[in-house]
């Protein structure tokens, strides 16, 4: 398996509180890795540490390394802007900007200095197609994104993240605020995208992980309990904790 991100001995703290405790594993390239675990176990903190989203909190700090292409992205010298171009993110609640569909998708490109109308048009179109929303909105790209349904908004957010051509896409419980049909659509999109992108998805839904994940990392109380191929984790977990979680002893 080809490795996209190497997580090495990663710990994260909010103030004195240790949220992540010495996590080490490799996130495989061009596959879906699901991060599962009970609520409050640090799943979200984990993905938000990868693209340094938590840097905005003054009392947040990390130790350990996350290696992307031989460089430690947690290093203060690693420029945030280029990190976030390489590692995109989709959030729990759809968060389009109150702008047109077109402007939403073109946003990332524009702030990175791309002005050429043709390039923008082409990129907006291909991103919307990749997020399987193009057919529904192609005649009305100037529509305000707020007018879309929740599921459509979330796929628009995926398209927005794709437009800047990241290598990795992080998704933090992307379907938890969305109905089952829209969830299925997003899962289909993610499976398709995993042919070209490394996908890391946080989910509290084991069924979802079973449906789409190639690999599963199980985190409990900030520690990585088990990481491996999805079918192995789901059918024959090595750790008792994992087994208990899967069989619903705690949630």
């Amino acid at each position, binding site marked *: 398996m080809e490795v996209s991100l190497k997580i090495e001995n990663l710990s994260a703290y909010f103030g004195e509180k240790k949220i992540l405790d010495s996590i080490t594993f490799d996130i495989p390239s061009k596959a879906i890795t699901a991060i599962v675990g009970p609520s409050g176990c640090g799943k979200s903190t984990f993905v938000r540490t990868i693209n340094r989203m938590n840097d905005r909190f003054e009392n947040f700090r990390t130790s350990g390394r996350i290696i992307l292409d031989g460089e430690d992205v947690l290093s203060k010298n690693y420029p945030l802007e280029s990190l976030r171009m390489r590692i995109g993110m989709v959030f729990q609640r759809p968060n389009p900007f109150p702008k047109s569909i077109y402007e939403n998708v073109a946003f990332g490109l524009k702030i990175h200095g791309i002005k050429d109308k043709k390039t923008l048009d082409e990129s907006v179109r291909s991103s919307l197609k990749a997020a399987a929303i193009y057919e529904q909105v192609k005649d009305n790209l100037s529509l305000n994104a707020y007018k879309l349904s929740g599921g459509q908004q979330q796929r628009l*957010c995926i398209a927005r993240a794709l437009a800047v051509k990241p290598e990795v896409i992080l998704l933090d419980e992307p379907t938890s605020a969305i109905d089952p049909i829209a969830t299925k659509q997003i899962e289909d999109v993610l499976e398709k995208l995993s042919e070209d992108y490394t996908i890391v998805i946080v989910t509290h839904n084991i069924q979802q992980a079973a449906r789409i994940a190639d690999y599963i990392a199980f985190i409990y109380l900030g520690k990585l309990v088990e990481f491996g191929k999805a079918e192995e984790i789901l059918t024959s977990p090595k750790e008792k904790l994992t087994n208990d979680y899967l069989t619903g002893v705690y949630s």
Partner: protein
Amino acid sequence: MLQKLGKGDVDIFSPHFKKNNVVDSVLWSSGWLSNVIIIAIIFFLFYNWVPLFKTVSPIEFFFGTRWYPTVTPPLYGTLPLLIATIEISLFSLILTFPISIVVTIFMTFIAPKKIRYLIKIFLEFFSSIPSVVLGLIGLSIVSPYLQNTFNLDTGLNVFNASLMLTFLTIPITASMMEDFMVSFPREQIEGAEALGATSIETLWKVILPGLKGPFASIAMLSMGRIFGETMIVLMIAGNAAIFPTSIFDPAKPLSATIAAEMGETAVGTPHFYALFGIGVIIFFITLFINLIGESIRIKYEMEMRRN
């Protein structure tokens, strides 16, 4: 999750629940009382204004270009007063608005926490300065300075009044802006940052465009505040009922006219009625400005409420 009622809890959905009639009626009547008071004020203003039209035509009152209530025959044209008010208010708003935005941005995005609190305390302190004190400063410091620097006939003019009104308004405007800036949806800020936007790009391309609605509404509310302010313009606008052609001309705004002349006017004279007429003009223009401000705000809130 519904919680079970414990001992001593009151189930307000129970058919046996009795409303607290005292509280209910106090709230109900105080709500209605405020409406009644506003209607009474309007009635009172009109009651003391309408008799003016026995001696002065409405066209002369609204569009007359000369306000000379003490000459014979007296002239009650309010147009120069209205123009003076509009000129001072607009100029003051043009100063207040960008300064407030800069102060707000500095407070919420740039200043470290400690300095942010210092600025907040400073603004609170500033907003508690009585307008008469600002008037005194305008009168004793700004006015001579303007007169000497720009070689003017008088330092009591539109510019001076606008400047002092700006000092009066910035604390209110900036703190209204800060409320919106601080409560700007975090998801959107993170959405922009996750795409690699710097905080300045996020500010320019997401936050400020997203706050267009509230800021327009704040501009109107500040305008409403400036429009009716009396003490400063009474003291330092120059008190000359002419059409101000430049910002360094003296002027006599509507509110200052009432304050300056009411004391020396006999009840029941046309002059007395005309001053009430000015009150009506201020009342309705302020009402109108505030209504526009509120409707912009409501429209924005409807838009922000998703789906």
